[in-house]
């Protein structure tokens, strides 16, 4: 299978929709771990976690960036292993 002409458009549309649901969900998480905590960093810093990290500092320096790595792998694996397969977009050979 290759190129748009051979793919029927309802299947492509459904595929596209399901893919967007995944992308938007992940983007909401991305937004939350990036932008929701810094405005409250000063008060969050009063809480200490793990070996003594101020919470506000830790959320930016470790939590957010670790979530980013996980988000990308979740996206890539869900797309490659689940969604692409469901709609028949699998590698040739």
């Amino acid at each position: 299978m290759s190129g748009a002409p051979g793919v029927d458009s309802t299947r492509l549309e459904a595929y596209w929709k399901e893919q967007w649901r995944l992308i938007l969900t992940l983007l909401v998480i991305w937004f939350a771990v990036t932008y929701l905590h810094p405005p409250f960093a000063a008060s969050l810093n009063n809480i200490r976690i793990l070996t003594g990290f101020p919470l506000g500092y830790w959320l930016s320096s470790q939590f957010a960036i670790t979530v980013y790595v996980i988000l990308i792998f979740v996206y890539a694996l869900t797309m490659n292993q689940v969604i692409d397969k469901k709609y028949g977009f699998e590698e040739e050979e």
Partner: protein
Amino acid sequence: MAQEAGYTPLTRAQISAFRRRLAKYYGSFFIFLIIFTLILLLLENVGLPKAYIGYAFIFLTLALYAFIGILNFTRRLEEYYVAGRRVPAFFNGMATGADWMSAASFISMAGTLWLLGYDGLAYIMGWTGGYVLLALLFAPYIRKFGQYTIPDFVATRYGEKARLTRLVAAICAIIVSLAYVTAQVTGVGIIMSRFFGLDYRVGVFVGLAGVLVCSFLGGMKSITWTQVAQYIILIVAYLIPVTFLSGKLTGVPFPQLMYGQALSHIAQLEQSMNLASYVQPFKQALSNASAITAFKQIGLTPPEPITVRDWVGTPWQFLALTLCLMAGTVGLPHILIRYYTVPSPKEARISVGWSLFFIWLLYVTAPAYAAFSRWEVLQNVVGQPINALPAWTTSWIRTGLLTIKDANGDGLLQFNELTINPDIVVLATPEIAGLPFTIAALVAAGGLAAALSTADGLLLVISTAVAHDIYAKIINPNAPYGRRFFLSRLMILISAIIAALLAIPQFALIVQLVAWAFSLAASTFFPVILLGIFWKRANANGAIAGMIGGLIVCFAYMIANYIDPRINVLGLSHLSAGIFGMAANFLLLIIVSLATAPAPKYIEDMVDQLRIPVGEMRLPAPGTAPGTAPGVAPAGHD
């Protein structure tokens, strides 16, 4: 048209054999690096002079890069521009890591955190979070498009005015990359002069030779395989000193977890010394100090010093800068083209994950460097009698990176009597941890690897923008194959020399330009590529208006705020000017596209094809008029 014959994808058996071979090569290289370091440690113990250890590291690494470069000599455009599109996701991730992490990430980022505290975390989140956007919204589609350069993408997608869009995109790519590469060359010169006692200018040219040996002969193919080796060197060099330091200070050699302890100690010490809190957010005032330095250096009359404190304590600058750096990441051509080199869109998705994982290793460690050295300075340097400072300080005072001045004449060192150059944080850590010189030389080799690998990627972008986009696609589309190659190599040489000449005077403005490169990329490529992929209605008129308008708005805010910080919106500094450029680009792109005729049918079909993650793109044959049926010329073979 220059045609390339017989470049076929590998079969499955060939691919797995290729992967096994790569794993074996780089695995043995890693072991060799460790053994080599151990041998030098032994030799240092029996009295080998420091200078020789330094030279051993430099020449070993440069020889290795040259070896990989020569091994990957190529006469195929497909290999020269996109490494044959055969780079497995995992290794492309390592190469992207090295491509991404420059001298600034390796040497200066920990120091920036040291100085800025919480506010510096905008760089940590901004320079990693962009990869989420890259994975979800860009990389698989860029790969599906399957071209050679980013201007290729823009010109093909906005094909109604292919030449103009290509020219504007090529110029943007050159501006962004040239500023960036000059800073890398400056970094090379600094490392060479500081560690190996070479003259700064000699260091610049030795380093440049190192860049040229990898990119000149084999283009993207040799750059890729060199960058994988460079990643291994830089990450080993970055992790070793701070791991030892963590072991020494806390008893647990796990810096990423243990620097929480350092932060607690810092807080107590700050309280007892009445210092501002390190983790307190949003402390930065707006000032034009950097503009004054830059103006003086170029010989212009500097503006009056102005400091604006109105916005201290508000989060706007932090949030805007984070967004700007993220959008800029996704707009940087030298990173985007790395996703042309993987075999398929599916590999591209996974590859971004590996890229960020390899980058994460360094970024999650940088704040540990900053915290441990701040603890060390507050505990053992500040408050001590000036004639009894720890041993590591003396050698750095000699280099001028650390200055102390007993302003009140009490014989004790107060915090405000101490000035620290941010670069010292990573460079001095081996000594603070009491490690032998061999480790310091390894760190220098790591810094060199970081600078060279980024410079490689950038030089390739500049040379292809000129040789491929401007010459072969706009000026002389019938250029013979050999001449394109010749021109590509010539451009690498010329842009390397230009970068070296710009780097020699060490303009403060250059550092500024790098910070601005992200804003510029966010204001030009980010909206145009994003809407190009996801919005069929976006057309060439909109893209041209968007890129030019974004560039102008971004520059205008930058320059105005840089010179007079009183000109600002919500206290955003010139570093976040990309927010405004990006908004202008999106607005213009949408309004102008809607006001003019929709893109022709063949472009809409192209966007439809983009959404299918398998198979190669079928693009209209070059030269077909808009509206005619798409031809069958496969991507990248024109």
